[in-house]
C-alpha cells in the first residue's frame, strides 16, 4: 500500500511512545504554533543552551512523532549541530521526495522522507520544527536560515 512510505514503523513508534513529551521548567523561550487548517497545536520550550527542549501538543501522528524526533535529535546539541539538523530536516520536507536523507544527521528523522511525498502532510511534520525555531529565537538563539517553507 502507498501508505508504507508515510506511516513508517519509526513514526508510529514515536507517536505511540513519544520521547520527552511534557512541558518543563525552567526555560528561556517558548512558542505556540497552530496549524490553522487542521487545528493541530504544539508548544515548544527551549533553554538558551539547548540542553532542554520540552513540548506538548495535540495533533496527528505525523506532527506528534515529528516533535518526539526533534526532541531526541536536537536536545543537548551545540548550536552549530542543532542548526545543521534543523536545516536538514526542513530541506528534506521541502524535497517532494527528491532528497536522500543523511541518517548521520537526521537519525530517526529519515523516516519522514516518505512524508515529503504527501504535500498535505508536510506542514504537519514541520509544525514542531517551526515552533522550535521561534522558541529558540525568543531564547536569543538563532538556529539559522531555513529553506523557504511553502507548505
Amino acid at each position: 500500500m502507498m501508505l508504507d512510505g508515510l506511516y513508517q514503523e519509526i513514526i508510529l513508534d514515536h507517536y505511540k511512545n513519544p520521547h520527552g513529551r511534557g512541558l518543563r521548567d525552567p526555560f528561556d523561550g517558548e512558542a505556540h504554533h497552530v496549524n490553522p487548517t487542521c487545528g493541530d497545536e504544539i508548544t515548544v520550550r527551549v533553554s538558551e543552551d539547548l540542553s532542554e527542549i520540552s513540548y506538548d501538543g495535540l495533533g496527528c501522528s505525523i506532527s506528534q512523532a515529528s516533535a518526539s524526533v526533534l526532541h531526541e535529535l536536537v536536545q543537548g546539541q551545540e548550536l552549530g549541530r542543532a542548526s545543521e539538523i534543523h536545516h536538514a530536516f526542513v530541506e528534506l520536507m521541502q524535497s517532494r521526495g527528491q532528497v536522500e536523507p543523511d541518517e548521520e544527521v537526521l537519525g530517526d528523522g529519515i523516516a519522514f522522507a516518505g512524508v515529503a511525498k504527501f504535500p498535505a502532510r508536510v506542514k504537519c511534520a514541520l509544525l514542531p520544527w517551526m515552533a522550535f525555531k521561534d522558541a529558540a529565537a525568543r531564547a536569543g538563539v538563532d538556529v539559522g536560515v531555513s529553506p523557504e517553507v511553502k507548505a
Partner: protein
Amino acid sequence: MTFDVARVRKDFPIFEREVNGHPLVYLDSANTSQKPVQVLDVMRAHQERYNGNVSRSVHTLGTESTEAYEGARARIATFIGAASADEVVFTKNSTEGINLAAYSLGQLLRLGPGDEVVISEMEHHSNLVPWQLLCERTGATLRWFGITDDGRLDESSLNDLVSERTKIVSLVHMSNVLGTVNDLSRIAARTREVGALLMLDCSQSVPHLPIDVQSLGADLIAFTGHKMLGPTGIGVLWGRLDLLSQMPPFLAGGSMIETVTMAGTTFAAPPARFEAGTPPITEAIGLGAAVDYLTGLGMEAIHQHEQDITRYALDALQSVPGVRIFGPATVEGRGGTVSFGVDGVHPHDVGQILDALGVEVRVGHHCARPVCSRFSVPAMTRASFYLYTTTDEIDALARGLDQVKKVFG
C-alpha cells in the same frame, strides 16, 4: 418511482476514475460536489458559442449571453421559491453573500453600541467572522446560541438572546459539521416579534432539501453553487425585494449604477446594485444548468435518497467499535453529513488511510472551530453524501475504518 442512483452516477464522469488504485469513493460533497456532464456541457457550449459580456452590449453575442445569464437567475429564483428573479443576487459564494449582507445591513440599520447581533456556536466561520467584524466596526455586541449535547441549537434562552436590542439574527440552516437541520420556526417568530432581521446560511441546505424562501421565515439567505453540482465562483444572496431595495451597495463599480457624475452616483435597483463588475457569467449559467438537473430529479426524491443513505451510514458507523458520532444520532432533523471520531486516532491519520483506499473524506475543524471546541476535540473526520452516494460507498468507508484501526491499533 425509486431513485435510480446507478443512472445518476453515469452523469458524473469523475466516478470513472480511480484513486490510489481503488474506485473513487467520494464522501466529501459538503465540501464541494461533483459535476454532471449536463452542467459541464452547458458551460463549455456557452464559452464556445455564445460568449459576450452581459448587460452592456447591443450585439447578438452580448444579447444571447445576457439572456442565458438572466435565464439562469430566473430558474434559480423558481428553484428556491423566490417571489421574483430580482430577489436573486449573484455573488462569488456564500461567504461573499454574507459579507455583503453584514456590510450593507450594518449601514442600513446604523448599527452601534447597545445593538446586538445574534449568531450561534454552530456556524461555519463564514457566518461568524463577518458578524464579529461588523460588531468590532460598529460597537454592537455579538451574542450566540449554544449547541446541545445531541448537536442541536440550544433554544432554552431564546427570549433572552433575541430581544428588543437584537437587530440581526444570522444562523446556519444545516450544520456543515453536525449535519443538524435547524428547525427555525420559533427563532424566526421571535426575531419577527422583536423587529429584527433574520439571515440564514443555506450553503448546506439548498443543495439537499426542497427550499421555499417564502415559508422559511428569513429575510435573507446565502448559498453557493459548487456544493449543488454547479461550478465554483458563483453563489447567491437571496433577499426580500423590499429589503434589498433599501440596502446600500457593498462593492461598487460598473453595472451597479443608475447614473454617475463626477460629483456623485445613484445606484441601480437590485439585483444589479449588488453585482458590480463583470460577473462570473459562465458560472452563473452553469449554476442554472445545475438547478435544472436537480429539478429534473426532484429535490424531494434527492432528499429521500440522502435520508436512506444517512440512515445506513449512521447504522454502519455506530457498529464500528471505537467510533463516536458528533451530532444527531438518527436521521430526524439531520442531513447527510456525518462527523465522527475514531478512538485514539487523529482525524488526519484517519483521512490519510481512507484516501489510500480511495475513500475521500474531510478531516480537520471544517471551518467551524467552535463546533469542535464544543465537543472538546481539535478536529473531526467527516463523511458527507449526495444524490450520487451509494450504500457500497458507505461499506467502503466502514472497511476503511477497520484498516485505520489495524494501522494504529
